[in-house]
């Protein structure tokens, strides 16, 4: 933002950002378009010179700023969506994120700014694949999403499941928490009857190299023609722009901060892959499309916590959580499922107390591999203290979402344990495949 001093100066000259202005200082003058101030010093005005470059110029004593011409109105053309009865219909739900973002010159970063129609305008190939219906569900960066957003989104998907005219659903979503949303949607939608494809981008759509293009096209192919009834994530299979991997929502995890192929399946294999031309390969066991009725089960216990085990961890953290009303905890322990069982940080006494009231479920911070609390003493003692989570292969965030969902259905301790360790949506694997 510009400083007060600059804003006053602009107001006096009735200058708005976007106007063509002339700055004169130290005997030199510069003409250009006054840009909004995104970041940096509020005392420098940002001028877009005719060669396209921006420069920041301080208005020192004696400097003048004059308006030469008013801003040109922006020529934003909205894309019109056409209908072709011979093609299947795909519903694109829009929730925000990089996939539908562009540079915002006010705040400097990339922001969610696209109307759903813009998505089709941006990727004309979508129309060659299917009739595109779009709906803006909400506009949120994924780090700001809550379980309420998942519930709202699940309702929209549920509506689409009941509409026979819709072949599949594509959900544009921020990538940071996409695997939480994917898991939640999977649990919330019982007996799902068509493909539900979450898709995102690691590079914003305003750059020529954005992965949004390929990801969206591949997602649309899968949603329109895939013989699949699962919640999946479709993102780059490798760093190359050739294919996208199809990853079961309850197995997916974002495994890299910035790469295009950040998403991978944890303790499982991809369901398949799809390319730009629509060549689709599915493998292994997966649910196929059907005409049955889907059911919406979207109650969720919000008051749960995911707690990572770490050296010198105070057991009081757990105590505090329970005191503040926590209804369930996923403990992200070491490797096979270990945590402090001796010394000043011994968790056992407090665990014995709290597991009387709320479920404490063990997942592993190793991410890959299965929890097995029978191998070491610590694991056995933790089990004796009431920690559940034996022999499962759910990664911590998946276990977290599942626990919230399970607690949304039942408060019964035994039932919670049973449901947590029963496969509902393909989230639990009986075997750990060798990759």
């Amino acid at each position, binding site marked *: 933002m510009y400083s007060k001093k600059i804003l006053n100066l602009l107001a006096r000259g009735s200058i708005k950002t976007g106007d063509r202005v002339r700055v004169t200082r*130290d005997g*030199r003058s*510069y003409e250009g378009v006054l840009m909004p101030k*995104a*970041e*940096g*010093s509020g005392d*420098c005005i*940002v001028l*877009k*010179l*005719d*060669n*396209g*470059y*921006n*420069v*920041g*110029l*301080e208005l020192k004593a004696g400097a003048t700023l004059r308006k030469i011409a008013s801003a040109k109105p*922006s*020529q*934003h053309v909205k894309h019109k969506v056409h209908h072709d009865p011979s093609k299947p219909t795909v519903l694109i739900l829009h929730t925000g994120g990089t996939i539908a973002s562009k*540079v915002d*010159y006010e705040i*400097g*970063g*990339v922001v969610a700014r696209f109307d759903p129609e813009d998505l089709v305008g941006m990727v004309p190939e979508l129309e060659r694949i299917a009739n595109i219906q779009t709906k803006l569900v909400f506009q949120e960066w994924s780090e700001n999403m809550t379980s309420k957003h998942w519930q709202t989104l699940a309702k929209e998907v549920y509506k689409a499941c009941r509409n026979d005219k819709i072949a599949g659903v594509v959900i544009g979503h921020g990538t940071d928490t996409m695997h939480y949303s994917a898991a939640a949607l999977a649990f919330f939608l019982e007996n799902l009857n068509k493909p539900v494809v979450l898709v995102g981008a*690691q*590079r914003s*759509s*305003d*750059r*020529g*190299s*954005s992965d949004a*293009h*390929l990801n969206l096209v591949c997602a649309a192919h899968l949603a329109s023609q895939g013989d699949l009834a699962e919640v999946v994530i479709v993102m780059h299979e*490798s*760093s*190359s*722009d*050739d294919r996208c991997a199809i990853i079961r929502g309850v197995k997916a995890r974002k495994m890299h*901060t*910035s*790469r*295009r192929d950040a998403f991978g399946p944890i303790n499982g294999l991809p369901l398949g892959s799809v390319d730009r031309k629509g060549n689709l390969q599915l493998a292994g066991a997966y649910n196929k499309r059907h005409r049955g009725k889907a059911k919406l089960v979207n109650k969720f216990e919000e008051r749960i916590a995911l707690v990572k085990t770490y050296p010198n961890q105070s057991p009081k953290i757990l105590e505090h959580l329970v005191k503040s009303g926590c209804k369930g905890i996923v403990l992200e322990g070491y490797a096979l499922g270990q945590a402090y069982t001796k010394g000043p940080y011994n968790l056992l006494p407090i665990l014995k107390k709290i597991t009387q009231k709320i479920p404490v479920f063990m997942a592993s911070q190793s991410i890959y591999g299965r929890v097995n609390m029978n191998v070491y003493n610590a694991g056995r003692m933790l089990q004796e203290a009431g920690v559940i989570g034996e022999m499962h292969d759910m990664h911590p965030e998946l276990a977290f979402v599942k626990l919230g969902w399970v607690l949304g259905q039942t408060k019964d301790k035994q039932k919670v344990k049973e449901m947590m360790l029963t496969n509902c949506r393909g989230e639990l694997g009986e075997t750990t495949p060798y990759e």
Partner: protein
Amino acid sequence: MNYNDLGLKCGLEIHQRLNTKKLFCGCSSTMKEGPTAKVMRTLTAVAGETEEIDPAALHEQQRDRTFYYAVYSNESCLVELDEEPPHAINPDALYAALQVAKMLHCDIPDEIHVMRKIVIDGSNTGGFQRTAIVGLGGHINTSFGRVGITNVSLEEESAQILEREGRTVTYGLNRLGIPLIEIGTAPDAHTPEQARELAEALGSLLRSTGRVQRGLGTIRQDVNVSIKGGARVEIKGFQELREMEILIEREVERQSALLALAEELILRKAHATDPVEVTHIFTNTANTMLAKMVASGKRIYAFVLKGYGGMLKKPISGQRTFGRELADYALAQGTKGMIHSDEQIGSYNLNAEFAMLKEKFGVGPSDAICIIAEDERVALRACRAVVERAKRALKGVPEETRAPSQNMTSSYARPLPGGARMYPETDVPPIRVDKKLLERIKLPEGLDAKRRRLASLGVAEQTAAELADSEMLPIFEEAVKTGADPRRASEVLTSTMKALRREGLAVDKIESEDMIQLLQNVAELPKEAVLDALKTLAEGKRYTEAVHVQHLGPRELESLVEKVIKGNMDLINKEGEVAFKKLMGPLMAEVRGRVDGKVAAKALEKRLRSVLR
């Protein structure tokens, strides 16, 4: 040519690679490694900050190309792969750029904004090049007066093309992201000689920072040329200053010719028809290339340039004809080119077909027929591009970017890019240039001061002058700092290198570290050994391979002399002292490269005398 009457205006854009690490990551800028992996990518045109899509960007998009990027383990990382946001700007590169801006008396912005310049020819994985203006409105003094400096920028080098096949291009990521300083001048040079002087002056100024890379390709010049009534034409990327003068001359010739052509075309009321498919006329053609294309399903389109007859064979610069200018536009669209009726149609075995076309279109002698063969979409696009260019000829010279071509002419590369192709690099916050930072930027030592300093180290006066303005200076400094003899080292870096360069040896390709190592030992090595080592290093070998033998100590030399003498006693007894000359050969064969020839001769002479005595 009277450049004054023609109103010639030339401006330069110089790009100089820096020897720091890369601009937005910690990768090495040395380009020594081989690739280890490959990644495939595509690019799409996107709107810039002002919501318009730039014509240059669109042009590239129309060519739907696939790009492969070769990955290098230390010379590229996820930043070059567009898989990781840029790190903070390299402080050494920024320092050098600010030095240059200061030396050129530029106004330095109070805030430097890194921009994304849209480039979708694939040479940047992100689809843009990161670039920032660090200086505006400066000047440099020359023998022909003051030349304006429009901008000094700091930007990323692009990836270089390794391979091109159809619409697939393979780039190397090792070059991508190396810092470049760009200097843009006002069009204040009015003759080719002045342009050359200006380029030399700017090159010397850049070298004075001690931060520039040396060798082929590390400096590139673009030149803007226009004459009265002509248009601004940018000729891209040549490295030889000698070439620049000729290219400017040719461009002046071209613009003059196009202006004359425009007058003629207006008189003839020249215009063009829409392209029509004529593949059927060529089904039995004797032209093997077209026959092959038709057989593989390509289509042939024809259009008529009414009133252009005879014009297409007019040379407009060097041997380059107007027809060739038009064909460039067809080539740029991804076709194999264009055939037109002003060419020797007989030599293409196309007489019959062109006769049929003439009849079909009712074409007279003042008209020209053109054909283009390709897939429908590409062919039509190419036809339209050529027609547009032909129409544009009535207005004189089109603004465009051209690339140096054979015989010092240039060929059309793409339309001149507009300002719309810039938007902010939001991953790099603006860099505040406050007083404190500016005060820290010290101007590099001037040429005179440098010369004096070199002389005080014991470098001969003439050599000092040469070395002070040489890109070899940083190597010299480093070598001397680590123990090289200044006088010998300076001679190697100037006269010796020059002589070897003249012999056609690639001495500029010698790795800096090898050169420094050689210079450290230069005082102990015989001259011949240094020469041999330089020759070997120039072949791309490393220091340890080039200087494998330690130089001979006096005792070893004596024993070798002894060996030669003993083996030739008959000769010595017969010829006496005269045998010396005949013995030098076998001796040198033993000691070459390990001891100076003069030293060997002295030792031989001494021993020979004592033997004869």
